[in-house]
């Protein structure tokens, strides 16, 4: 973030202004990515008129940066009508898309409408890997063609490379592809749980060894020894720090009008179909609770050696069951980076190694297909 943007963000925080909003226009998608956290069925998306009404309310509330995402935004037939309306309201627009449906004409229209940037998901430079993740043959070629169309219009494009077991070894080639295309590139080694709390897709997360190698890649992190150095203990300032911008200067609205602190923090704070956007932002009890949380309030993390340097996501902690608890995915990243287990990981280890009060051994004679779903040889309580 630039110094000026940081200043503006600090001012927005003081003034209580929602500077940045992600609005998902649809959860429908033309790709079926293996790691996606969404239910792609349409359960009653906001209409064009409802979205325009919401955009007016957001402009009046002071929202400046509007990220339009999904699902796939181009699955909505009214996408350009919505985009045009949003630009008339002078939002700074960022788009997130797989870009499969962007051809020359769409790229030109996006340029004409003054979009700030377009983020395109690319998982690998190899079609057999990218297309296996999206489950759409030919999708890599279409996305790369679209990036070229967008770049030919002079637009800013950012490749988003989510890393998981399937593509962990391809990120350097994706970065090289980004250089060739003239785009920026971001890496994210975190697969998140489904919005409904289903955690089965977390098995796709890259393991500790792969993360460790990633964090020692000096092309990414600069001085690896410095990046992976032992964290300083949390000081008084960091104890009073805010976890992130979610609910403070930023929020998320789903295609059904549900208002959350962040796309990764599915704590419903209200619905814009029933209440004004600004009323939810100002008065929601759930948002007030999110805003009240400081590091010193986190029973485990405030005592953890990683407290001052951890990227703990309050949304992921919420999905684990407690917005004031640890986010294990971030604990694992801190461990892979420094080699020092977090307080949470140590507690989990102690729990696993503690003697079980009851142990049930499966008898070989009854282990068969009937029990394959139990996923283990013993179950303890």
């Amino acid at each position, binding site marked *: 973030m*630039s*110094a*000026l*943007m940081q*200043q*503006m963000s600090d*001012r*927005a925080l003081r*003034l209580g*202004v929602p*500077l940045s909003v992600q609005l998902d226009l649809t959860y429908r998608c033309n790709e079926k990515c293996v790691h996606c956290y969404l239910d792609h069925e349409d359960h009653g998306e906001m209409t064009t008129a409802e979205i325009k009404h919401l955009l*007016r309310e957001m*402009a*009046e509330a*002071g*929202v*400046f940066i509007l990220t339009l995402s999904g699902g796939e935004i181009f699955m909505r037939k009214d996408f350009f009508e919505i985009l045009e*309306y949003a*630009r*008339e*309201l*002078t*939002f*700074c*627009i960022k788009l997130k898309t797989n870009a499969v449906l962007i051809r020359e004409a769409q790229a030109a229209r996006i340029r004409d409408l*003054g*979009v*700030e*940037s377009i983020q395109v998901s690319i998982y690998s430079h190899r079609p057999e890997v990218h297309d296996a993740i999206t489950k759409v043959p030919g999708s890599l070629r279409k996305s790369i063609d679209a990036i070229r169309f967008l770049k030919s219009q*002079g637009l*800013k494009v950012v490749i988003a490379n989510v890393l998981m077991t399937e593509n962990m070894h391809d990120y350097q080639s994706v970065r090289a592809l980004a250089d060739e295309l003239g785009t920026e590139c971001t890496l994210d080694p975190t697969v998140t749980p489904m919005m409904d709390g289903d955690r089965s897709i977390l098995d796709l997360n890259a393991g500790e060894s792969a993360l460790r190698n990633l964090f020692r890649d000096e092309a990414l992190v600069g001085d690896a020894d410095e990046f992976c150095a032992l964290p300083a203990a949390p000081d008084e300032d960091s104890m009073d720090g805010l976890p992130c911008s979610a609910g403070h200067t930023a929020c998320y609205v789903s295609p059904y009008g549900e208002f959350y602190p962040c796309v990764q923090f599915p704590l419903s704070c209200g619905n814009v179909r029933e209440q004004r956007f600004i009323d939810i932002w100002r008065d929601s009890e759930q948002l007030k609770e999110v805003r009240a949380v400081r590091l010193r309030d986190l029973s485990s993390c405030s005592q953890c050696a990683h407290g001052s340097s951890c990227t703990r996501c309050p949304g992921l902690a919420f999905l684990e069951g407690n917005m004031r608890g640890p986010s294990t995915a971030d604990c694992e990243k801190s461990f892979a980076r420094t080699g020092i287990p977090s307080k949470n990981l140590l507690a989990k280890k102690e729990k696993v190694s503690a003697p079980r009060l009851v142990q049930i051994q499966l008898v070989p004679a009854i282990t068969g297909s009937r029990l394959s779903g139990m996923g283990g040889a013993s179950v303890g309580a």
Partner: protein
Amino acid sequence: MGFNQQSTISNSCVKLKMNKRIYLARSPRIAARRLGEEMLVMSGQGSTLFTLNPTATILWQAADGATPLDEIVESRICSEFAVQPEEAMRDAEALAEDLAKHGILLISEQPIPKPATSVQESR
């Protein structure tokens, strides 16, 4: 009067001709929102962020393409700030040139028609 900017964009300088009426309009390619007493402005090309101070914000908000700059200065600036009209006009012209140079304002010696829009003016 003035504004802060995140980085510099090189562009052709728009020279104002003295003693002629000039008209200002907000560029349709920028993003903008009022934040407290200031105006946040992002130019589409180059993703450059600007903040306009309260005086520049008044000028920017009054730039409707139809009201001449001298009328804006007289009705919106001299009435709010203890400043002589000649001095205010000189400052306003310099500021308008700067903003035009960065693609934030359009300047013309003729009224500038508004692009077709279905939306009322935002804050």
